[in-house]
């Protein structure tokens, strides 16, 4: 898989940094979306805003609703993406999922998945993990 290489950051300005991280995140979400589509998931929403926060991806596999949290890191210098999924974050994900279910009036099984992506410095894929029902 080849992806577009984003310009390397040239300034340590906070604003630029934030923008850069958003771009990395966006890139990760696109990778995850492609992967899920290939696996036969139907993507219902991307970056769905609930009253708490955003859900990265909402998909459907057969008759199960899947909420996907995508974590992307470039290199492992600042911890692995799995490390950043702690109990607190998990609780937030559950809240968000409930928000979507209420909004969509969904009556059926649902689960939360995590997709952890590690990129190489040149923004090509290094590692891709899909954890089901975390």
């Amino acid at each position, binding site marked *: 898989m080849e992806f577009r290489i984003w310009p390397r950051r040239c300034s340590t300005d906070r604003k630029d940094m934030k923008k850069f991280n958003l771009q990395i995140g966006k890139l990760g979400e696109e990778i995850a979306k492609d992967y899920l589509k290939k696996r036969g998931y139907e993507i219902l929403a991307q970056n769905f805003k609930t009253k708490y926060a955003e859900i990265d991806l909402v998909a459907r596999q057969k008759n199960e609703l899947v909420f996907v949290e995508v974590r992307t890191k470039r290199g492992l210098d600042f911890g*692995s993406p*799995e490390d950043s*999924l702690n109990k607190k974050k998990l609780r937030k994900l559950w809240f968000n999922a409930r928000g979507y279910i209420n909004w969509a009036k969904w009556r059926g099984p649902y689960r939360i998945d*995590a997709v952890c992506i590690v990129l190489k410095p040149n923004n090509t894929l290094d590692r891709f993990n899909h*954890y089901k029902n*975390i």
Partner: protein
Amino acid sequence: MLIKVASAASRGLETIGVDVEVNVAGRGLPGFNIVGLADKAVDESRERVKTAILSSKIEFPQKKITVNLAPADVPKEGSVYDLPIAVGILSTLTNCKAPEKSLFFGELSLDGSLRHTKGALLMALFAKEAGFESIFLPKDSANEAAVIKGIKVYPVENLSQLLNHFAEKECISPAVYKKAKEEAFDNLIEFDMKDVLGQEQAKRTMEIAAAGGHNILMVGSPGTGKTMLARALPGILPPLNEKESLEVTKIHSSAGTIPPGGSLITIRQFRSPHHTTSPVGLIGGGTKPHPGEISLAHRGVLFLDEFNEFPRSVLEALRQPLEDGYVTISRSKERTMYPARFMLVASANPCPCGYLNHPKKVCVCSPRQIKKYQKRISGPLLDRIDLHVDVPSVDVAELSNNQKASEFLEPSSTIRKRVVLARKKQAERFKTEAIHVNAEMKNNHIKKYCKLSKKVEQILQQAGVKFQLSARSYLKMIKVARTIADLDNSPEIGISHMAEALQYRPKRYEEV
């Protein structure tokens, strides 16, 4: 993949076996969780284990690791589970398996080495009772555990060494208990009895106290040498015998007061808590009951300097342990019994200014002040102290004379020889009993071992009437007389022994 590693948890002086179950799952979000009523220190061991494994140049698995400490309803505390958890994880990574029937315990350092952990002796004792063959623990704590015979104690320096041992590349040789040298004993004593000038009476009382394990109260003006006498006391006490040593070391092991590399405690402990100590500090306690000063002074000396300055609540708490020789600490979560058979040595001033009954200086306290000061120690407590002695002030002119004569004074080692002899006689006498010294005698023991001749009994009865002795002090007089007779190498209590014992009767200072 599930691995079970054996370890143990301490609750007071008891030890309960704990199975450390480590599961490294192939599926699921990577993480590291510990369950089984773990406290903060156990929970934090995750970070220690993870970093220690990484520091040993082994890659930490990116898998879902669950650790269960069974039985799940016993609270686990402390850092002892670092090693068993690390061993569990390592044995799933590498093919070398931990040997069966072995117990693991110890705290890990971030660099993969093992740190001194408290409770080594208790763990080794448990391991032996529960039928384990070997025990792996930090190198610094190995000396302590090696005391227990019949079980292999492996001192582990770091994780990589342990892995090499498992793989049989480089074996660790079991630790062997080395007895401390005898000559070290005299070096540990702060003061010698010959350094204390004058005070022959007080020294004699100290000797009796040491021989029979009696409690003692010294009353005297400031600067007369009360504290010095007390500090010289450990020097005339006999060393602990094997059984006593083990009892004392058990308490200190659970309290964590044994230094790294330390082993069996062979000299009697001398504890001198400050008078601002709380009741819990002295007796022991806390939500998870810890031993207090009285238990740390087990089979040794508890020295309470400035006896009157201790809060009343603290002193009254001493009453029961003084009588029973143990203390039961009950809290909502736990109940523990700690032995506390100690010699109480107390020193006090006779009045707030300190110069009551001083031959030269004038006491400036009002009678009311003196009464109030002396009332701070209750009658029942004084009644429990066998030997009451006055430490009079020393004349300065006499002091300079004595300075020259100090070479002729008895050194502690000579006194100790007499004390040891007297204790030997007592050990012989109480061979079939559960007690060690005269002070521990109960009424039935007194009846059995302290037969008084008619004349001696007469003296005692007269004294009892005249000094209004309580039933308890009446019996205490007999015990003290027994010790004096033992020091005198006499099988029977003579008139002179009883007469001397009566000098040390409980008295309030006004009588003096």
